[in-house]
């Protein structure tokens, strides 16, 4: 659905975040961008959404999936909720901003229900746990029914138990909704557990070091997390990451 060709991004302060970055994205797949901190993973997401323009290189949208008609869902590293608004008002925000008023209530309620937040609709973010806030953030990203869901280390700040549960819920959502997901992470274990394909990036300036398919079938669950197959995949990915980091590692 989308190809990034030879993307280069230099920030005004002279830092080269990305150089010669190539990536292709297929409809409906779950891809992880894995790399050390500061390798430009987040910049890739921002370039896809158009929040940041690349210094050079091209984005090629395939078929009908032009950026104009493309709906993104974006999940930030922090929940990034408006503290002054209830969960429901936070989730409905994208519809409001896009001026979609018909069906807004139904879409909002659906999104809340999908993430198990129906009871919390009238709560304020302050009254929620970290995991619940992140659920609200994901519900907000899904409310516009986007075709592409971009997630920027969404679970990095959560405790492991919450993180595992949200991993499972995310997989469930991906399988039932059939969206394309790009997940940025620096966790080898998370990327292996979730994705069909892992793109390993080099340290700054970021480019693709290698791509690794994870062929284990879905649905994946706790059994997969403790399987030898999972461990083997993790080792393979971890080794690739170590090589990507080169002598720095």
């Amino acid at each position, binding site marked *: 659905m989308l190809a990034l060709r030879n993307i280069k991004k230099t920030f005004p302060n002279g830092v080269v975040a990305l150089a010669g970055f190539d990536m292709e994205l297929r409809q409906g797949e779950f891809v992880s961008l894995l790399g050390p901190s500061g390798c430009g993973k987040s910049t890739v997401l921002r370039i896809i959404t158009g929040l940041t323009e690349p210094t050079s290189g091209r984005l090629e949208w395939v078929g009908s999936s032009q950026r104009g008609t493309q709906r993104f869902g974006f999940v930030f590293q*922090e929940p990034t909720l408006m503290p002054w608004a209830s969960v429901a008002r936070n989730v409905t925000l*994208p519809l*409001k*901003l*896009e001026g979609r008023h018909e069906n807004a209530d139904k879409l909002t309620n659906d999104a809340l229900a999908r993430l198990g937040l129906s009871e919390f609709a009238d709560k304020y973010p*302050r009254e929620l746990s970290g995991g619940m806030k992140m659920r609200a953030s994901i519900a907000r990203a899904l409310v516009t029914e986007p075709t592409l869901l971009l997630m920027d280390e969404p679970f990095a700040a959560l405790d492991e138990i919450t993180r595992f549960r949200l991993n499972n819920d995310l997989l469930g959502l991906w399988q039932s909704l059939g969206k394309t997901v790009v997940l940025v992470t620096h966790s080898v274990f998370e990327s292996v557990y979730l994705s069909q394909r892992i793109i390993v990036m080099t340290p700054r300036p970021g480019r693709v070091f290698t791509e690794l398919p994870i062929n284990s079938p879905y649905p994946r669950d706790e059994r997969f997390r403790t399987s030898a197959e999972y461990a083997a995949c993790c080792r393979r990915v971890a080794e690739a990451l170590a090589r990507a980091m080169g002598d720095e590692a």
Partner: protein
Amino acid sequence: MSPAPAPGEEERRRDRILRFVLPFVVLGVLIVLWHGVVIYWELPPFELPGPGLVFTTLISDWPVLSRSLAITLITTMLGFLLAAIGGIGLAILFNQSRFVEYSFYPYAVILQVTPVVAIAPLLLIYMPQQLAVLSCAWIVAFFPVLANTTLGLNSVDRNLADLFRLYGATRMQVLWELKLPGALPHILTGLRIAGGLSLIGAVVAEIAAGSSGVESGLAYRIVESGYRLNIPRMFAALVLLSISGIVIFFALSLLSHLLLRRWHESALVEEF
């Protein structure tokens, strides 16, 4: 949060009661001391009136004092309202246009740093007294609103700003849905400061205005009573000014608490 009595519950309740009661105890002690001093040294009322005399003066002079109180309060409120509107409005304007900000912000600062006592006599030359007094109240009060609102509007969460951009929010949507609600705690801080300052501004201007007619506020009453050696009335007027200041402060604190209690950290302290 839970209804079950926590171990520290009793202690906390006692703490809250103490916090409320102790200031009144101190007040009582001071009044008794004051009374004692006046009796012991047999001070005449024109040197130091006792608390009882001040109180009876407050009641006997109420017709005069209440009219002055009303005048000062109206000036204060108007000054405060105009400061709120002007401060918030100007901050929004500054936030929307950098050119406007660069052009006018220095003058807002100059207006603030020039002592209002020094401006008041000048204003009184060019304006009718009421308007001059009001202008002083406004000048002192509007800057904290402007400065705090500006700070609030500029400290928008960057990720939220990105989110708004992602969904193609209009400038107005960003202002109404993101910047202003986010700035609310700052705006309320500004208003709380402005409330006290507008009273100060009104008083300063009234004193500078001095004797010039029928419509005279509390501060003028103080000056006038001083000339006439009517010291009890001076005290009575001063008490009324203090109470006005306290009421304004608590009213604005309450407003702030009511608006922020559901979501802002500053209001969390109240939630035991």
